[in-house]
C-alpha cells in the first residue's frame, strides 16, 4: 500500500474513533439536561440610542473593555465609508473619527487598555492606531496575510490575534510588526475568532464549516468542532470558558462544550432562513443575541434553545453585535449605517 493510501486508512480509522468517543459521551442534550430550569423570561428590549454618523454599511463594532470611564461608555465601529468611529454610547457623541487608508474594512477591535484600536479588511492588513496621541496615529501596519482580514482581537498593547481569508490565524508582536505564531489547520477562509476568558486559548470559525480551539502559546489546534453545514461567521466563548457558541450561514447557532468535545444544542427555527452574521452573549451566558441577514437580531435562551425575543429596528442586515463587560446593554450595527443600543 502506498503512503497516501496508508494515511487515508489511518485518517478514516481515527475519524471513526473520534465519532465513537463522542457518541459514548452523548448521554443527553443540553436542552434535556435543562428541562428542570425555569424558562428565561420574554426579553423585550428598547432602543435607547441610535448612533448616526457613518455614511455606508457598518461591518464591525467592539466595546472597550473597561468601557465605563469618566462617565462615558466607549466603543469602536467600522464602516465601508472608510472610517472608524469611537463613540460614547451614553451620550451618542463621537469621540474620534479615524480615516482608513482602505475603505474595505471588515473588522475593528479595541485594546483592553483603551489606548489602541485596530482595523483590517480587503487590504489584507491589520492596522493599529494609537488613540492617546494628540492626533490619532498609525502605530503599525501588520502585513503578512495573503488574504483578507476578517477579525482582529488584542491580547494587550503589544500582541494581537488576527483571522484571515488566507485560512490562517496569526499572533503578532505589534512592536516589531512580525507574526510570532501562525495557526494552520483550517481549509477554508477564517471568518471570526474569540479569546477565552483566561486568554490562554482562542477559537476560530471558518468557511470550512468548522470551529477550532487553539493554544495561543504553543500554536497547536487542540480541538475541532463539526456540525455546521456552511460558513461560520460568528463565534464567542460562553463566559465560564467551557463552551463555545457559533453562528453560521446555515441559519443556525450552535453551542459546543469543550470538555465533551461536541455540539450540545442547536438554536434554529423552521421559519428562519437567513444566515447568522454575528453573535454576543449576555454576562451570565443565558441569553444569546444573534444578528441575521433578515435585518433582525434574535434572542435565544442558551440552555433551552428557545427564541425569547427579537430586536427589530434596522433597515438592513445586522452585521455586528456586542455586549459590554458590565452587561448593561447590547449594541447592534447594520448595513443601514446605524448602530443601536438596546436594553
Amino acid at each position: 500500500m502506498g503512503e497516501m493510501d496508508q494515511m487515508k486508512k489511518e485518517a478514516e480509522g481515527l475519524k471513526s474513533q473520534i465519532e465513537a468517543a463522542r457518541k459514548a459521551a452523548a448521554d443527553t442534550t443540553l436542552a434535556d439536561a435543562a428541562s428542570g430550569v425555569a424558562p428565561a423570561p420574554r426579553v423585550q428590549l428598547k432602543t435607547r440610542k441610535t448612533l448616526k454618523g457613518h455614511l455606508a454599511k457598518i461591518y464591525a463594532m467592539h466595546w472597550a473593555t473597561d468601557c465605563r470611564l469618566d462617565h462615558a461608555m466607549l466603543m469602536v465601529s467600522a464602516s465601508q465609508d472608510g472610517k472608524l468611529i469611537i463613540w460614547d454610547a451614553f451620550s451618542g457623541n463621537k469621540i474620534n473619527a479615524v480615516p482608513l487608508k482602505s475603505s474595505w474594512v471588515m473588522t475593528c477591535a479595541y485594546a483592553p487598555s483603551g489606548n489602541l484600536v485596530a482595523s483590517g479588511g480587503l487590504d489584507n492588513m491589520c492596522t493599529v492606531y494609537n488613540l492617546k496621541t494628540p492626533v490619532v496615529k498609525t502605530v503599525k501596519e501588520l502585513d503578512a496575510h495573503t488574504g483578507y482580514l476578517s477579525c482582529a482581537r488584542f491580547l494587550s498593547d503589544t500582541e494581537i490575534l488576527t483571522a484571515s481569508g488566507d485560512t490562517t490565524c496569526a499572533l503578532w508582536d505589534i512592536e516589531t510588526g512580525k507574526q510570532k505564531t501562525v495557526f494552520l489547520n483550517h481549509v477554508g477562509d477564517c471568518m471570526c475568532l474569540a479569546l477565552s476568558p483566561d486568554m490562554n486559548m482562542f477559537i476560530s470559525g471558518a468557511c470550512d464549516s468548522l470551529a477550532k480551539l487553539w493554544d495561543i502559546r504553543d500554536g497547536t489546534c487542540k480541538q475541532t468542532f463539526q456540525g455546521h453545514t456552511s460558513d461560520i461567521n460568528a463565534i464567542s466563548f460562553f463566559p465560564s470558558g467551557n463552551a463555545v457558541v457559533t453562528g453560521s450561514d446555515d441559519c443556525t447557532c450552535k453551542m459546543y462544550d469543550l470538555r465533551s468535545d461536541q455540539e450540545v444544542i442547536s438554536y434554529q427555527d423552521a421559519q428562519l432562513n437567513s444566515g447568522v452574521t454575528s453573535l454576543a452573549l449576555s454576562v451570565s451566558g443565558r441569553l444569546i443575541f444573534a444578528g441575521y441577514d433578515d435585518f433582525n437580531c434574535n434572542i435565544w435562551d442558551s440552555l433551552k434553545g428557545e427564541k425569547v425575543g427579537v430586536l427589530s429596528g434596522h433597515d438592513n442586515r445586522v452585521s455586528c453585535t456586542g455586549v459590554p463587560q458590565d452587561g448593561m446593554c447590547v449594541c447592534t450595527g447594520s448595513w443601514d449605517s446605524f448602530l443601536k443600543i438596546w436594553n
Partner: protein
Amino acid sequence: MEAGKVCSSNSVLQARRAVEQLRLEASLERIRISVAATQLVQYCQEHGRSDPLLTGIAASSNPFKDKKTCVLL
C-alpha cells in the same frame, strides 16, 4: 510509484499533517454531556441574578434612559 497515481510531495505533507492532527484530537478525554450540561446550567443560575439584560433594569438605574432630574456635579 503506483500505476496511474502521481502524488505530489505537497499532498503527502498535507495528508501527514491531517493524520497528526487527528491523532492529537483522538487522544482527548471527553466528559459526558450530562456532566458538562450540569455545569453550564449551574453557571447560568449562579450569574443570572447579576445579568441586567436577563433581570431587567429599573428605569432609575438605567444609564441609557434620559433623565429629567438634575445631576449633582
